[in-house]
């Protein structure tokens, strides 16, 4: 059951009691949020249904294709900024030709999945939370439940599948475009020949970094769908509530992408 009654707890007196109550509420919310993600995975066998396939493709278009313009700009400029900052420092040691290596290592390991995660959280995640929130306050989620249509299968699972496919691709695309942006700055600002830039970049492109980056991107995608849909489903108080859910989902996604990103890096390096 997605639609839940608002839990109104008695007001606690005393500082510690209040903190304790907040911790209990937080743990409960984290658990329910995780159940949305787990529930969506449990519905994955339905992905091969004709209707689900169509919805996955529609969501893929929204997640991947419609995000391309903003991801392109962000990726290109991140690569340019990285190359510029690194180039300025490397110039002190006459090592500008190493710009490509640093840009490649940074983009592949961290910036590719991280930046694509942030962009998707701010665009697709926010729109997901707003859509689910509006559907909740307009009784559309309740209508689905009454029709015995599981919202986790009907709404969350196709988004989850689409995001699991789209995020690694977008992360890879971000890496490649960042590399191009870095090359442009290396060539125009530091006169590093493109062949040198590319050769140095490829020296630092190892399969492990590539795999970890894609894994991270996938995890970020799962986080974005889970948090955004959960925030949407728990929306109350009309339009104000939808705004609040959208804002909370973006903030939580940003924080979780940062924190989980760190721990995934720790796990592999």
């Amino acid at each position: 059951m997605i639609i839940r009654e608002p839990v109104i707890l008695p007001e606690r007196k005393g500082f510690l009691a209040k903190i304790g109550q907040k911790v209990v509420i937080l743990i409960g919310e984290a658990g329910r949020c995780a159940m949305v993600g787990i529930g969506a995975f449990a519905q994955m066998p339905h992905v091969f249904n004709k209707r689900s396939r169509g919805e996955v493709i529609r969501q893929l278009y929204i997640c991947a294709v419609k995000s391309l313009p903003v991801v392109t700009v962000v990726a290109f400029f991140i690569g340019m900024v990285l190359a510029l900052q690194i180039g300025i420092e490397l110039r002190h040691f006459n090592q500008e030709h190493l710009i490509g290596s640093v840009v490649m290592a940074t983009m592949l390991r961290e910036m590719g999945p991280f930046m694509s995660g942030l962009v998707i959280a701010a665009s697709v995640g926010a729109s997901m939370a707003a859509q689910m929130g509006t559907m909740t306050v307009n009784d559309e989620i309740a209508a689905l439940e009454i029709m015995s249509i599981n919202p986790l299968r009907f709404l969350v699972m196709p988004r989850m599948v689409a995001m699991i496919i789209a995020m690694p691709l977008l992360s890879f695309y971000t890496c490649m475009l960042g590399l191009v942006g870095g090359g442009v700055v290396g060539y125009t600002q530091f006169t590093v020949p493109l062949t040198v830039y590319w050769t140095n970049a490829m020296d630092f492109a190892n399969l492990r970094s590539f795999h970890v980056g894609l894994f991270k991107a996938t995890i970020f995608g799962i986080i974005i769908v889970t948090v955004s849909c959960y925030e949407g489903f728990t929306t109350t108080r009309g339009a104000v509530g939808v705004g609040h859910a959208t804002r909370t989902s973006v903030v939580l996604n940003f924080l979780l992408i940062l924190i989980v990103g760190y721990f995934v890096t720790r796990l592999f390096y």
Partner: protein
Amino acid sequence: MIRFEEVTKRFGQKVVLKNVSYEVSEGEIFCIVGPSGTGKSVSLKLMIKLLSPTSGRVCIGDDCVSSSWSKDLSVLRSRFGYLFQSAALLAWMSVYENVALPLRERTKLTDAEIRDKVMDALEKVGLENDAETYPADLSGGMQKRTGLARAIVTEPEILLYDEPTSGLDPVTSRMIDDLIVELNERLGTTSVVVTHDMHSALSIADRIAMLHGGRVATIEAPQNFIKSEVPEVRSFLDAQYITRKGVWEKGN
């Protein structure tokens, strides 16, 4: 068919329903009227476990809704059709797709069979020419009629209507009233209608329950309801210019 047994419903400190007990018989049109905030819509939501009672039981036949787990609940809910006050249509689907949704998701009917049933339901609510329109392009009344078509397309045993005629013009309201009576007569559907519209309630109901202050003020057949001397009922009827002499018969 639907039984409320000593049902109390609280939201925090606020008590919405207090020890409410009544029974809706099979094939009956049961209207629930009363001022805003007296627990009419809450009663409907308790029937399909969108809400759970704080104490007491809500039973549908032999099944107790309030203690049903999700799998039983899904089976139980498939017996219901529900018309929301806000219609609750999915915005990215056309009128046709919205109405076809429960058939596509819950049955194994072919596309042709689904088409026949959907067009039949749309014809009943007078929207057969708007099948390809999207909810955003419909008026409030048309959205509500689409919601009604979606509720009746599966021909459920029990239909719950939350303010079916609010915001509708008198002709459409009458059409909806006639449809509720027709479904009841043709399919034997049990209907629970929450409404403020006493004219509508008196026209279609077999029995009318008045909720006031979270309690049942009275449950009467329409002809007795308008003669009721219960002060809450009297003031509610007076506010809609319905006197003791008013003659209201089912279907008229």
